[in-house]
């Protein structure tokens, strides 16, 4: 009964069989997943903003700053340590290095996608491997950052009768308990994205090395994981600003 079918939008690009947005199904779905993920991260960062705004800010010169449960800490006084060197005040240096590592791994991912367009298997392998190395380096840095944050600094302040040092989910030496809770939640959620990104990157890297993309005829999977990886970098740009700079 083919003649009973009613074509409502003949000539429309939305009638099926074509790509109205000039992007494949997989790429579109990756974009919409990333949009939903962007909402999650926005909610977390805006919550950080709200909770920080609902605590008093430190009044006075930065040189007079001391950790207290009474007001929100100044981030550059909290994150001022670098590995292997003890007792040096190097504010934001380590997190700056982490930022550069992640931006660089994003660049190598773009180069992998570009090589995929050219069907250059060797170059895709090389750049994806650098991207994975960058991701692992970032995760290593974050592991150090967390362990340092949890262990605490020498500047531990006397609170009540207990010497509070380091951080847990209920209390921390740096400021209100929510400060450490938000640190763990936001950088942890981002770090888990980096971790899953490395795992997915490795899976696609493996498929490239065994020649799957050449059999399929294109390197679109590299593009899709590329979108995810850039998104992880994008989120870090925002975490860096709202958690460390402001």
């Amino acid at each position, binding site marked *: 009964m083919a003649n009973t079918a009613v074509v409502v939008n003949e000539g429309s690009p939305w009638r099926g069989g074509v790509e109205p947005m000039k992007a494949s199904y997989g790429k579109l779905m990756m974009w919409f997943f990333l949009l939903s993920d962007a909402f999650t991260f926005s909610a977390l960062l805006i919550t950080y903003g709200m909770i920080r705004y609902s605590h008093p800010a430190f009044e006075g010169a930065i040189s007079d700053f001391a950790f207290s449960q009474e007001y929100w800490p100044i981030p550059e006084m909290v994150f001022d340590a670098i590995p292997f060197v003890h007792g040096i005040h190097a504010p934001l240096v380590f997190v700056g290095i982490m930022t550069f590592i992640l931006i660089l791994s994003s660049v190598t991912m773009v180069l992998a996608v570009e090589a995929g367009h050219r069907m250059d298997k060797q170059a895709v392998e090389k750049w994806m491997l650098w991207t994975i190395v960058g991701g692992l380096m970032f995760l290593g840095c974050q592991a150090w950052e967390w362990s340092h944050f949890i262990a605490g600094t020498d500047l531990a302040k006397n609170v009540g009768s207990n010497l509070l040092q380091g951080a847990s989910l209920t209390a921390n030496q740096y400021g209100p308990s929510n400060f450490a809770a938000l640190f763990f939640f936001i950088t942890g959620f981002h770090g888990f994205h980096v971790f899953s990104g490395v795992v997915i990157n490795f899976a696609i890297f493996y498929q490239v090395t065994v020649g799957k993309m050449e059999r399929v005829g294109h390197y679109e999977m590299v593009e899709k994981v590329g979108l995810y990886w850039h998104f992880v970098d*994008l989120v870090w740009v925002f975490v860096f600003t709202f958690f460390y700079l402001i």
Partner: protein
Amino acid sequence: MEHQTSNVQVIPADKAKIMKIWKVAGILAAITIVEFIIAFTVPAGGAKSFVFIALTIWKAFYIVSEFMHLGHEKKSLIMSILLPLLFVIFLIFILMVQGASILEVLH
């Protein structure tokens, strides 16, 4: 053992395209360095936060538009991704108002 002779034609790299990628990377690095300089030279305040947020959005534009290639997609795809983010602006607004009220009530 499986033996495959590859007949895939590798297209040579376009130098201008590769240069563009590194140029965007350079811009991202430069903005980050500017953020560092501001972090240590400008005293804290509303203007400083505003500059940081502006620079962050500038960086985000380059990552999304060039690295994620969204700037070169069809307009309908660009708008499907960007317009829903207006809800985020609304959430910022209501939660900042909420934060101010909590501060007023508790302190």
